[in-house]
């Protein structure tokens, strides 16, 4: 499906196309999910789980975001965006019907149709880190026969900071073959679930390091570090663990020179990496 939104002669990868924000969902005090549709009602471009797109507000700027919807949702793209600066502040003030610019897809996706096929999958996310995993999880749910057991461990600062809470409760938790483990950092009134950081909850759960299992992590660097340590202690091999890296990006296509770690460009060789691949990179992320 190619995009016909107002591109004219020059289809340079740096030039965005027109799109419209059709729905805005408030997830947490600082995260909203934006539904984006091409100006002609199309989906702008195809993507795979883990890939990202650049969103533009003319005059405000442009930034990279994970596409949080699954490619199996073919009518739109969703972005869960945390308010933390110029562009994201502006996005949070928008109303449905507002037009924006979009370009993509960027980066290498998770190997959902190859390595992940037939495997039991463990997803571990912290905070807004659920955004890229949400796409993989829903892709796996839509192609349920291709995957084994699915475990989802997700934590946030507080109950109010859990993104996609309704979907997790009403859909994911209710599905056979999916186990959801939620946790928040500190006790809170009205929360009867688990309390504690993601890495310590991981130890309590104690996933078996079966060779048929793949773990996928996304969250703040400190969480990634301790979760990875935890998995290794449990007996997982780094080749069984995938994560995504996040660095400042401008072009998205390996040319502006901004997002490299050693000889790898996170925008084009990532953002998805297998953890043993990350070990080979110089320590600069």
């Amino acid at each position, binding site marked *: 499906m190619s995009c016909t939104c*107002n*591109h*004219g*002669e*020059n*289809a*340079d*990868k*740096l*030039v*965005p*196309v*027109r799109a419209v924000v059709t729905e805005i969902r408030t997830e947490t005090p600082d995260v909203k999910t934006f539904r984006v549709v091409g100006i002609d009602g199309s989906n702008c471009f195809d993507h795979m789980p883990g890939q990202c797109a650049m969103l*533009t507000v*003319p*005059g*405000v*700027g*442009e930034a990279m975001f994970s596409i949080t919807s699954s490619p199996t949702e073919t009518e739109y793209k969703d972005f869960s965006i945390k308010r*933390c*600066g110029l562009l994201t502040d502006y996005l949070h003030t928008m*109303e449905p*019907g*507002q*037009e*924006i*610019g979009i370009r993509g897809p960027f980066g290498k996706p998770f190997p959902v149709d190859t390595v992940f096929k037939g495997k039991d999958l463990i997803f571990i996310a912290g905070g807004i880190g659920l955004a890229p995993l949400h796409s993989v999880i829903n892709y796996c749910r839509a192609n349920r026969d291709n995957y084994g057991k699915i475990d989802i461990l997700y934590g946030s600062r507080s109950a109010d900071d859990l993104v996609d809470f309704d979907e997790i409760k009403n859909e994911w938790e209710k599905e056979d073959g999916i186990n959801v483990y939620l946790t928040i950092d500190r006790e809170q009134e009205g929360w009867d679930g688990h309390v504690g950081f993601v890495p310590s909850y991981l130890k309590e759960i104690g996933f078996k390091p079966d060779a048929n299992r793949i773990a996928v992590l996304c969250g*703040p*660097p400190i969480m990634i570090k301790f979760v990875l340590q935890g998995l290794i202690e449990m007996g997982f091999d780094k080749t069984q663990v995938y994560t995504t890296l*996040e*660095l*400042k990006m*401008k*072009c998205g*296509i*390996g*040319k*502006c*020179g*901004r*997002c*490299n*770690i*050693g*000889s790898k460009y996170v925008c084009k060789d990532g953002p998805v990496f297998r953890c043993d691949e990350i070990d080979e990179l*110089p*320590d*600069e*992320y």
Partner: protein
Amino acid sequence: MKKIEKAKLNDLLARLAEASTLYLPVRKGGKVNFAKWTKDEEYCADELKTVKSAKDVFFPQSENIVSFKRESSKITILPKELPTDRTVIFGVRACDAKSFDILDSVFMSEPADSFYTARRNSAVIITTACSTPEETCFCGVFGIDPANPGADIQTWFVGEELFWEALSEKGKALTEELSDMLSDADEKEVEDEKSRISEITKQLPLNGLSLENFGGDKTNELFDAAQWEKLSQSCIGCGTCTFVCPTCQCYDIRDYDTGNDIRRYRCWDSCMYSDFTMCAHGTNRPTQLQRFRQRFMHKLVYFPANNNGEFSCVGCGRCVSSCPISMNIAKVIKSFGGDNK
């Protein structure tokens, strides 16, 4: 081999400028740089190196890539039209000519940068051999020969004449267009000139640098080396080295509101700047040591890793002559044992 009297060169340039946009080294504000040539301007043929490299012609210091209009909730996106006019760049040195190949492998690899590619495809590059390479030059270290500068057409100034050799199809076609102004020439004088240049090149103090300790497989060995601390100690992060460098390609993308529309422009940026990688959760290179190391590791290790061993430096020596603290890539190479002389 063809030639033209130096006295008639201006007529030839005028002819080129009629049928194309002609860039060549001219003096502006006391500095010689590549710029659009008009009849009143003097071609600074004797200037060995322009202050900035010739990369401006294909990768301008600043250019608009798209403009926008915003009207309540609606936006309009107007991509900039691609340049198609023929461009001729005259007087390019061997090092800068080679730098185009290096920039090509960045900008023209998939997905190609259409702005760069359009300019590159519509350009004819005419090089000029360096009659007096300087002591800051070390292009030979990267396999570049200032006596045979290459590109579409290569030329030599010998005595009162300019010798002219077309190499590519584009170069031959342009030579044909100018055939009434060029006369047949003997190779002998050019061969003598080449030997003369080679003799000078052999004597250059930096031409014996060795790159054997660098290359695509050296990341782990060099990244944590103790040398970076001392090398980067005095670097003030001014970015001059990256701006004058023919192979530096980092850029920024920003929006500018003119009041009438919004222009999104792309401009040169520098990995030497402290905010280059600043993002929502901070920067991954908070120290100047890290930024300094990035620049040189990119040229001598990371770029070769991604480009079949090719280095991203052409030994033009611009960073050698322009760094305010006299730090440069030659010193970096030497400090890792590359001083072979």
